[in-house]
């Protein structure tokens, strides 16, 4: 199995057709409404006017090529999608080539990476594409032998006819198969017959990544290309008053310094020339309109005010919550707060743009190529089909590259300087450039009756540019008779955006830490407490239930079993469970006392993402998600002083490191349900499991992130060596 990465669509089409003959099927990876699968002939392939976003090609020399249109940022889609096609095709995986597609066709749907949705959206279509090709190849063989397809078997890309002892490789059948009418009612495999799906398959790009091949946006270079960095306002809420760029323009290697909107772009012939020159550009800023220059201490005050606001938006209301609280025997009321977070993908933002009179060329890393192209088309007032976008591998995304700001900016600069240019963000630009995980504060209230039953539940979410931060239909909604969930939003000049597992990346922690405290107050085991609520949601639901009670129960029970919940001596266990992005994940964090200090040793994870496609990729999505959730809950915070982010690079902004990762033990429910997504769901439960374990070990409840700055946590260590 080999991989071609940076291929233009034309190159791919040539490649698919080059073998002369063979079978090429055009199909859509994700579109539900698009044209169904078609055989594509060589002439129309080369003409390049076909509206499919993927192709499956089988050449006469038995090479199988699968065209991968989705952005790859480490979620391993470039490996797992072709696996699904190859499974139904019964192909020999070692003969499969995966080719990354550029964005170039007109009818894309969902060529994006975000929301853990790629596999759930595409599962059926991918299977159907593989099964269709298989059926056509079988029919070609049957025709050759003048027999029925039912007397044929397939093993690893070889069609066998037992009776005659004849066999054909797919390559030998490919040209004949292209003349067969495309079947419309192919039978998909019984899931128990999967051979490739559910196994551990290595990333198709491994060899390229570990030998340093140019895969990423920053690796893109072109003869005559200019380099640029852009100074954006240092403080949110300010705009440019004056620019003095004379000294910068006089520096060696500098081509120009241009101002557009609130940006000052330094353009030159090398990264270093630009980096040095931008330091001598003198820019004065002034407040933008009536915007205030906010500090983190202001945000703390806004949150306090907003929690008392009368002007809330009610998100869910069941029963009569006020009466329930009025007659409660016990009320527990707690607040939880998180800071802004930058995404910090290891490859900072960057994009190449060349705006010419006859069209626009864009090259770089984006999670949303279609959206980025349309935004550039809007900016330049041209038709989107005048723009080509070549997708590189992404050095991480975490939601940041869902936005198109850095693509549009590169295109605008290229249109001003009339030259091909790569805009590079330094780490400082990336960390201070906005689109953050919003800072949010939650107030939870629980009412228990004399029998310690949860009779009332309130959640108010207040956030800064957070949209709706409450996910009001999640557990425990449906399990409590009287419930009120509302939210208030504060509009700030600080920009925010989706950050891996948007909203739930913190809400899950707050909720799961709160439920743990409620269970303790009710003198119930935290797991039993949740199971009882689920039982109630199942038997006597209140309002709509939008999570699957049985699936949630199953991960809870699996985590309890695998962690030997409550049975381990000298280990403090903390539990958490969360439903997000269609999947269910329960976690148990374990803390031991080492050298008289609490140390996080292990996190046991039970996940239900439906069928696991690639076991290797899936394991890593879980571990990576847990490490992400743990690291940010423990260490990370972006604070502001008068509109300026106070952390600018990894010397002051702390990310988790190798020594600090605990053992992570992963278990899948594997219930045969169609895949439900895994890029995000392992992250949300981690903070809660860890906080709840820390409570057991120290008696100290945590209400704010990052944990490391909270009183009482001095001396806590992470990692197996802690």
């Amino acid at each position, binding site marked *: 199995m080999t991989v071609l990465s940076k291929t233009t669509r034309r190159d791919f089409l040539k490649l698919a057709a080059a073998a002369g003959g063979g079978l090429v099927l055009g199909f859509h990876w994700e579109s539900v409404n698009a044209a169904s699968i078609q055989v594509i002939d060589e002439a129309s392939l080369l003409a390049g006017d076909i509206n499919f976003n993927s192709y499956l090609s089988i050449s006469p020399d038995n090479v199988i090529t699968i065209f991968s249109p989705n952005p790859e940022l*480490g979620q391993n889609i470039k490996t797992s999608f072709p696996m699904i096609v190859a499974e139904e095709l019964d192909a020999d995986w070692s003969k499969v080539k995966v080719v990354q597609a550029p964005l170039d066709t007109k009818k894309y749907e969902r060529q994006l990476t975000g929301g853990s949705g790629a596999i759930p959206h595409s599962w059926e279509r991918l299977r159907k594409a593989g099964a269709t090709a298989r059926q056509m190849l079988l029919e070609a063989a049957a025709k050759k032998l003048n027999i029925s397809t039912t007397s044929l078997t397939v093993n690893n890309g070889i069609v066998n006819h037992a009776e005659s002892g004849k066999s054909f490789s797919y390559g030998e059948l490919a040209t004949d198969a292209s003349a067969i009418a495309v079947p419309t009612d192919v039978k998909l495999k019984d899931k128990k017959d999967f051979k490739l799906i559910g196994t551990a398959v290595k990333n198709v790009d491994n060899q390229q990544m*570990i030998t340093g091949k140019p895969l990423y946006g920053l690796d893109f270079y072109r003869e005559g290309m200019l380099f640029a960095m852009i100074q954006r306002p240092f403080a949110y809420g300010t705009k440019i008053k004056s620019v003095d760029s004379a000294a910068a323009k006089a520096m060696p290697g500098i081509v120009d310094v241009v101002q557009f909107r609130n940006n000052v772009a330094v353009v030159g012939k*090398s990264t270093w020339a630009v980096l*040095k020159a931008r330091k001598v550009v003198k820019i004065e800023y002034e407040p933008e309109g009536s915007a205030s220059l906010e500090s983190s201490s202001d945000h703390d005050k806004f949150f306090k005010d907003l929690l008392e606001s009368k002007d809330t938006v009610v998100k869910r209301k069941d029963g009569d919550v006020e009466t329930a609280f009025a007659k409660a025997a016990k009320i527990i009321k707690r607040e939880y707060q998180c800071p802004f977070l930058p995404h910090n993908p*290891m490859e900072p933002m960057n994009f190449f743009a060349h705006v010419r009179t006859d069209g626009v060329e864009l090259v770089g890393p984006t999670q949303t190529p279609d959206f980025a192209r349309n935004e550039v088309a809007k900016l330049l007032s041209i038709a989107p089909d005048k723009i080509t976008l070549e997708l590189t591998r992404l050095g991480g995304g975490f939601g940041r590259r869902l936005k198109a700001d850095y693509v549009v900016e590169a295109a605008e600069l290229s249109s001003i300087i009339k030259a091909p240019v790569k805009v590079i963000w330094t780490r400082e630009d990336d960390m201070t450039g906005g689109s953050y995980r919003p800072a949010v504060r939650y107030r939870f209230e629980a009412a228990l009756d004399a029998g310690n039953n949860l009779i009332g539940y309130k959640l108010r979410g207040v956030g800064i540019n957070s949209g709706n931060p409450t996910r009001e239909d999640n557990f425990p909604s449906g399990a409590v008779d009287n419930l009120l969930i509302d939210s208030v939003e504060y509009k700030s000049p600080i920009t925010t955006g989706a950050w891996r597992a948007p909203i739930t990346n913190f809400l899950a922690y707050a909720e799961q830490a709160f439920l743990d405290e409620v269970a303790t107050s009710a003198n119930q085991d935290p797991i039993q407490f949740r199971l009882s609520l689920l039982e109630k949601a199942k038997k006597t639901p209140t309002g709509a239930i939008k999570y699957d009670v049985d699936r949630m129960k199953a991960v809870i029970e699996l985590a309890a079993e695998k962690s030997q919940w409550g049975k381990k001596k000298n280990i403090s266990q903390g539990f958490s469970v969360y439903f997000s992005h269609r999947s269910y994940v329960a976690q148990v964090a374990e803390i031991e006392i080492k050298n008289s200090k609490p140390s996080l040793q292990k996190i046991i994870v039970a996940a239900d993402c439906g069928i696991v496609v690639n076991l290797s990729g899936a394991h890593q999505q879980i571990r990576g998600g847990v490490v992400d959730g743990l690291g940010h809950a423990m260490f990370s915070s972006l604070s502001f002083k008068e509109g300026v982010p106070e952390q600018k690079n990894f*010397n002051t902004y702390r990310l988790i490191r*190798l020594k600090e990762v605990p053992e992570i033990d992963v278990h899948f429910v594997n219930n045969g349900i169609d895949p439900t997504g895994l890029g995000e769901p392992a992250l949300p439960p981690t903070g809660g499991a860890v906080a709840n374990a820390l409570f057991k070990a120290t008696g100290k409840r945590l209400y704010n992130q990052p944990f490391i700055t909270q009183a009482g946590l001095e001396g806590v260590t992470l990692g197996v060596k802690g």
Partner: protein
Amino acid sequence: MAHYKLQINGHFYETDVEQDTPLLWVLRDHLGLVGTKYGCGIAQCGACTVHLNSAAVRSCSLPISAVGTKSVVTIEGLSEKGDHPLQAAWNEVDVAQCGYCQAGQIMTAAALLKKNPKPTSEQVDAALNGNICRCGTYHRIREAVLLASTKS
């Protein structure tokens, strides 16, 4: 601007750059060796790690004028066929997610194994603690280094 003759991956390269240009940008912008990555520019993340006379250094903070006649090895030159025991182990363990930091991880690990061919797990952690992996592939990084140490 000054003229430099550099010994990189067993070959000689010549280039004219400003004396304070970090080795990282000479490699990437001037010599086309883009396997060495930019991550932070202040020697905090390890993505730019290369070998200077066999020792791991952060190329983002090493001015070209300080390289002199020392030999430089980048990820492109770690092995001829991409089959250094660490590269083989990285594939075997299927370490990479986005993959951006991995060249730096491998170069740091290679310098460790050269000095200490049979490191303990703790020594691996200590040597690679300066390399950030934002995807969180840390478990597999540790596993791959230990696997490679059994084969070199």
